[in-house]
């Protein structure tokens, strides 16, 4: 049955009065966080459509007619397809949803259209979480959630006041929390995607590359995205020992360094002290390698150790990952395997004569490998090498050009040059990339390691010691290791000379003013809260769920049983509630309670009030049966009727009533 235009008009008028502005407001606030991300033209179109809707409400502007709406829809869909190349997936899908919502606003007619818009807004709230799970966003979107729910309430309850709707929405939200928690803990978690992995879910993730070319880490060194957080269960190691290794690069063609094929055969090492233990929470990087402190003790489940003591996950890290790890910071190794020695001595086919001559000179003058290494580090320190984050571009033979001409670079340049020189001197060497340092957060007692802390260093094989970490960057710019990458950047920005400045001068240059300190404090507090949030809320996955259920005594529960358990729990709670409300008889008010007391007294002397007998009729019967108490019965009844039905609430009369009943003793006479 098609409703007549008048009914439609009336329905629309009602819904618009109840929720017109609310719906518009909810749509605008839910899309605000998306605005930065959406293409500029789309944001502009959305703003224009919302403005139109606003004037439809405010100034009774007409809606564009059907043809215009269709044209607009087709144009928008086409433009979105041009922009994204698809209409599905997270990015294109959310843009399409936003556009559909704005277009829907031009043709809101029936209550159903309004409800549909509200549901679309719920959808957009969830989509917001696919982009960021930061805490501030959660707080913001929860507020949007309440507003959206209040809009739904206003549509369902005609004439509901703003305060009433918002309060009821908040009450519903709060009452839903325990149940939500139960679902959160018990709803079976599935690992992996349903319809193939979303290509765009990991777009824009930054992480270390498994290929190093002088200049490639530079991109990372500009990003202050967080790579991971580490929480030590004991005292934290000093900065000079905070080397987080992720990749070992064995193979080079003179320009690029890659992992090559893993050399066969592992190496046993002998720990020189008890391991440190710490927990690591990694941000998704879409890469499998896991930065671990030198040297990782063991591989937790889901990860494995590769040659070179680097830890790797079995699959790229696409969601936040928490690991419990151990590390030996001091160790010794006995013998280098044949395969590893060969890999660690691999050299590009062409090495410039200058480089070869330099290596040969050290070899001749030094008595041992260790002395060659010392000579090389001394060379970097003594000659005019500069640490800079903006090195000049290098050509076909970057090592040669860097060593003898430009002499400017950062960790990658130094590590690559150092390892090339070592291999040319016949010393097994390799490049290690990962992160170095990290910022300590005293509020949460953990280290924040950012992408800008990415670092490359070298390891050489020294007989009797094994693989030894050599950081040529530390020879040029010890501040990089001592103060961290971020401080180094600030020092460079202020034109500090590295490598020789007295520590006091550096500290002065790094000192923050009061405003800077407050900002830092705030940032660290927020990060601590964020980190706790990530540890306890966002990190809840299949593995955690299994752990939790095991603690409850449920081992290996299959998903279907879990759903059954959840349903049972909900049914129990609901059933309990329904029974509780049925059993609870309406509580009599104080006046009625006193009167019931009076009736009980009469019942003891044989006068029982029938359930449907009115107070007056009962009094009449009472006066006949107990003539000696007729006056008292009549008086009490009159007072009762006056108090209960008279509409006046008089404390003195109530007291009198209570007193009369209390001093009424029919049974004793």
């Amino acid at each position, binding site marked *: 049955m098609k409703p007549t235009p008048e009914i439609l008009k009336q329905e629309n008028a009602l819904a618009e009065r109840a929720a017109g502005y609310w719906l518009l407001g909810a749509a605008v606030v839910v899309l605000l966080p998306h605005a930065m991300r959406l293409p500029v033209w789309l944001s502009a179109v959305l703003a224009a459509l919302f403005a139109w809707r606003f004037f439809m409400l405010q100034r009774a502007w007409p809606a564009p007619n059907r043809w215009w709406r269709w044209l607009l829809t087709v144009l928008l869909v086409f433009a979105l397809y041009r922009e994204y190349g698809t209409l599905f997936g*997270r990015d294109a899908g959310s843009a399409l949803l936003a556009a559909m919502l704005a277009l829907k606003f031009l043709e809101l007619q029936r209550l159903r259209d309004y*409800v549909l818009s509200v549901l679309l807004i719920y959808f957009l709230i969830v989509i917001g979480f696919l982009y960021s799970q930061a805490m501030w966003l959660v707080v913001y979107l929860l507020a949007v959630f309440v507003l959206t729910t209040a809009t739904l309430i206003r549509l*369902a309850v*005609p004439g509901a006041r703003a305060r009433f709707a918002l309060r009821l929405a908040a009450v519903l939200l709060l009452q839903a929390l325990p*149940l*939500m928690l139960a679902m959160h803990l018990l709803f079976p978690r599935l*690992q992996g995607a349903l319809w193939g992995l*979303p290509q765009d879910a990991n777009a824009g993730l930054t992480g270390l590359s498994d290929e190093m070319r002088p200049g490639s880490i530079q991109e990372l060194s500009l990003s202050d995205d967080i790579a991971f957080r580490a929480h030590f269960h004991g005292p934290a190691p000093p900065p000079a020992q905070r080397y987080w290794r992720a990749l070992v690069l064995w193979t080079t063609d003179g320009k690029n360094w890659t992992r090559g094929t893993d050399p066969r055969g592992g190496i046993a090492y002998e720990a020189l002290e008890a391991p440190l233990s710490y927990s690591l929470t990694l941000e998704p990087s879409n890469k499998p390698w896991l930065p671990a402190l030198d040297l990782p003790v063991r591989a937790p489940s889901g990860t494995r150790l590769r040659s070179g003591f680097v830890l790797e996950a079995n699959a790229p890290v696409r969601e936040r990952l928490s690991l419990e790890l151990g590390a030996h910071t001091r160790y010794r190794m006995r013998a280098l395997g044949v395969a590893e020695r060969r890999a660690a001595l691999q050299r590009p086919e062409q090495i410039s004569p200058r480089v070869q001559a330099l290596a040969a000179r050290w070899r001749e003058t030094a008595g041992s490998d260790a002395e060659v290494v010392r000579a090389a580090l001394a060379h970097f320190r003594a000659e005019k090498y500069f640490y800079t984050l903006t090195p000049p571009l290098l050509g076909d033979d970057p090592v040669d050009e860097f060593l003898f001409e430009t002499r400017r670079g950062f960790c990658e340049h130094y590590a690559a040059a150092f390892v090339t020189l070592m291999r040319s001197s016949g010393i097994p060497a390799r490049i290690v990339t990962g992160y170095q340092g990290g910022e300590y957060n005293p509020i949460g007692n953990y280290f924040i390691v950012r992408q800008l802390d990415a670092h490359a260093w070298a390891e050489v094989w020294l007989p009797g010691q094994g693989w030894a970490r050599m950081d040529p960057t530390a020879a040029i710019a010890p501040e990089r290791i001592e103060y961290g990458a971020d401080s180094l950047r600030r020092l460079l920005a202020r034109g500090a000379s590295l490598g020789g400045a007295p520590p006091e001068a550096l500290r002065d240059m790094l000192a923050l003013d009061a405003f800077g300190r407050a900002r830092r404090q705030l940032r660290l507090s927020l990060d601590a809260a964020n980190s706790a949030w990530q540890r306890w*809320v966002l990190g809840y996955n299949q593995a955690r769920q299994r752990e939790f259920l095991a603690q409850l005594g449920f081992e290996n529960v299959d998903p279907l049983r879990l759903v059954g358990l959840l349903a049972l729990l909900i049914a129990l709670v609901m059933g309990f509630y329904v029974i509780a409300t049925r059993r609870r008889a309406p509580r009599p008010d104080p006046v009625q309670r006193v009167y019931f007391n009076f009736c009980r007294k009469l019942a003891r002397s044989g006068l029982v009030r029938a359930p449907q007998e009115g107070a007056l009729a009962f009094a009449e019967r009472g006066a006949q049966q107990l003539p000696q108490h007729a006056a008292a019965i009549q008086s009490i009844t009159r007072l009762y009727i006056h108090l209960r039905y008279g509409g006046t609430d008089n404390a003195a009369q109530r007291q009198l009533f209570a007193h009369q009943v209390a001093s009424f003793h029919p049974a004793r006479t």
Partner: protein
Amino acid sequence: MAQGAEAVLGTRQIYILPTRHGLLFVLVLVALALAAVNYSNALAYLLTFLLASMAVVSLLHAQRNLLKLRVTAAGGDPVFAGEPATLRVCLHNDSGARYALRLESAQATVMPFNVPAHDTRCVALSVPTVRRGRLDCPPLTLASVFPLGITRVWSRRMVLPARCLVYPKPAEEAPWQIAAGTEGESRPGVLQDGEDFTGLRTYQPGDAPARISWKTLARGQGLHTKEFRATLAESVWLDWEAFAPHDVETRLSLLCRAVLEAEDSGLAYGLRLPGVVLEPDSGALHRHRCLEALALHEAHA
């Protein structure tokens, strides 16, 4: 069916099912759950759970919105058959406020209304009438989509003892065969006892409808008013037997019109029905008694 002076809505009298919007809501929930699983996004899961939990909690709110409401009904003023009768339905609330209640019967629906905490609200339910007699309050259903519009909670049909009196539908044309006279004597078609009919004059606005000459109007001669010389008779008798050729309902209908006209013209009138005799009198109460007698006349008394 709940029966009695008042209906109290207990848990067994209340039903709940999702509305069409509720089904849409469930659809969105499923889509959200799929997105959460696919992107294995903890907050997407959490929000989906929050929405689902809110829907569950809203069921309790919906049920509580009707629970323990007491419903009473009272008949309104009598009406003539064909006019809508108005029944007053009152909702007595002994606890927290109730929202967006809709009172529904087979023929009518009352717009949503609220009942404040510990208060009573009455609404007028308009019911179409067809036949004379006592109109029983139709079975009523109380419903609501509170709080989110995604569920509809409704009560079992309540039959309340309220009744409304429906007078016969007055005949279009006055019979003007009022039998007048003293004690029992009646001669159909004759006006007498001080009624000195002097003639007709052209109708003027303000003339009593009772004096309109319906016969001349029926003959197509236009509106005329009858003129009498003296004051009207002290009493006329409206007699069942005077309309003998007609069937029962038509007679009642004609008598009804006659009562209305007699009252309007200020006559004292008596009503004689099989088994019922109402002595000549006038005034609103007498008019009501007469019309009531007509309304409740048994066909084969």
